[in-house]
């Protein structure tokens, strides 16, 4: 009898808590940043959500990419959103991206025994334009031109090393993020499904959704099944 996905892990040895085995990418371009994430949330071998949203908005102009424990990163995101909103009231202005990133890394650092959240904070502000900050587990805070994290990121470090150029246009950066994500999704079992991206520049946040069948495919990838054809075949 199949007892479903919520039972013992002795056989597989995999963690059972919902886990954003993930690929997240953020890249800065001339005038802003592009953030992207896949949509897969897995509990062991069961994909509990194939179209999740791993991009959380923290302020009008700063977003959070989440990987690691889904619960931990959601909690951190909620706290930081709360602190940032309070700060915005005191400042009478939106907080800078650097400050929001600092709040995320502080939570990671002060609670490092309990948390497993590897995050990327990216945003756009007047002071420094588009910025990407890595906030990995442990509480590090480091500003970078581009950042990747999550289980799928291991497959695309070299790809980004090769493809990233300073001063790209918005279109080039968006294409780079989608390509990188799809490469990782092709190789990492814990990443896949759909791609969500957010582009931030002085005009604001622009959200994009790329459905499973529109995700670029690579060498030896099977083409995505055509839903209509599948229906006809079964019927």
């Amino acid at each position, binding site marked *: 009898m199949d007892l479903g996905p919520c039972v013992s892990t002795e056989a597989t040895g995999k963690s059972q808590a919902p886990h954003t085995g993930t690929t997240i990418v953020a890249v800065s371009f001339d005038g802003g940043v592009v953030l992207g994430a896949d949509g897969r949330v897995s509990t062991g071998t069961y994909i509990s959500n194939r179209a999740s949203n791993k991009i959380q908005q923290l302020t009008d102009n700063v977003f959070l990419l989440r990987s690691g424990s889904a619960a931990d990163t959601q909690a951190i995101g909620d706290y930081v959103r709360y602190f940032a909103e309070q*700060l915005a009231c*005191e*400042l*009478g202005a939106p*907080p*800078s991206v*650097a*400050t929001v*990133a*600092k*709040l995320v890394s*502080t939570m990671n650092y002060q609670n490092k025994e309990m948390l497993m959240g590897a995050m990327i904070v990216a945003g756009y502000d007047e*002071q420094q334009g588009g910025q990407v900050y890595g906030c990995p587990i442990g509480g590090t*805070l480091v500003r970078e031109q581009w950042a990747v994290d999550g289980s799928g990121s291991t497959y695309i470090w070299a790809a980004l090393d090769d493809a990233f150029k300073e001063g790209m246009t918005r279109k080039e950066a968006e294409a780079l993020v989608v390509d990188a994500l799809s490469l990782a999704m092709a190789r990492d079992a814990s990443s896949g499904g759909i791609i969500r991206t957010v582009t931030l520049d002085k005009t604001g946040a622009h959200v994009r959704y790329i459905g499973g069948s529109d995700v670029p495919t690579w060498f030896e990838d099977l083409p995505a099944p055509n839903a209509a054809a599948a229906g006809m075949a079964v019927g």
Partner: protein
Amino acid sequence: MSGIGTGYDLSATTYSPDGKVFQTDYAQKAVDNSSTALGIKCKDGIVLAVEKLVVSKLLVERSSRRIHNVDRHAGICVAGLLPDGRMVVNRAAEEASNYKSFYGEPIPGRVLCERLASYMHLFNLYWSMRPYGTAGLLATYDEDGPALYLVEPSGVAHKYHGTAVGKARQAVKNELEKMKLGQLTCREAVVEAAKILHKVHEEDGKPFEIEMSWICDDSGRVHQRVPAEVLAEAEAAAKAAMEESDMED
């Protein structure tokens, strides 16, 4: 001091029939009786200056500070009860340090001003504490540029182009109003401040020192004492101006 406030001035939690809290007013008097301090907002920074009466020949020159650092980008000149002033400065430094530690950036001037004003106001609310008998001239330089604030014992705080506190504040403000403050550089303002302080110093024969600080582009946007040579030049110019005006009389 019987008379005006009789009966309604014994605690900070009592209003008078005409809506005053006399304890707050009395705290303001402590500031008004202090030696004169002034601040000028220039186009490239802020200058703070204070007249310090030398009460004894035994005092080491230029040793007792009236102007204090709060953070690299902020400083306060206190007037009134000086030990109270020290506590206010310490609180400001704590606020700045905590802000930097939590948010990762230097505290903006207007936030520091609000925090300090709130803090000073606190002591006007409770029976068990007296208001601070100090006012602080707060000079800051942040991403929004240089700013000069005055925080008073009541908790009121405003942003100024130029202002003064203490005994000769009205005379100083009259002088400041004649000047085109927005067009001065800090170097020019240092000279003007020295001239003004010499001019309004009332107690003839009583020696006094001038302490000045600035935070400007020339100082790397760091709050620091005006360099000794610059101050010496300014004082020389001020003394020359005084002699000139004496000769005119």
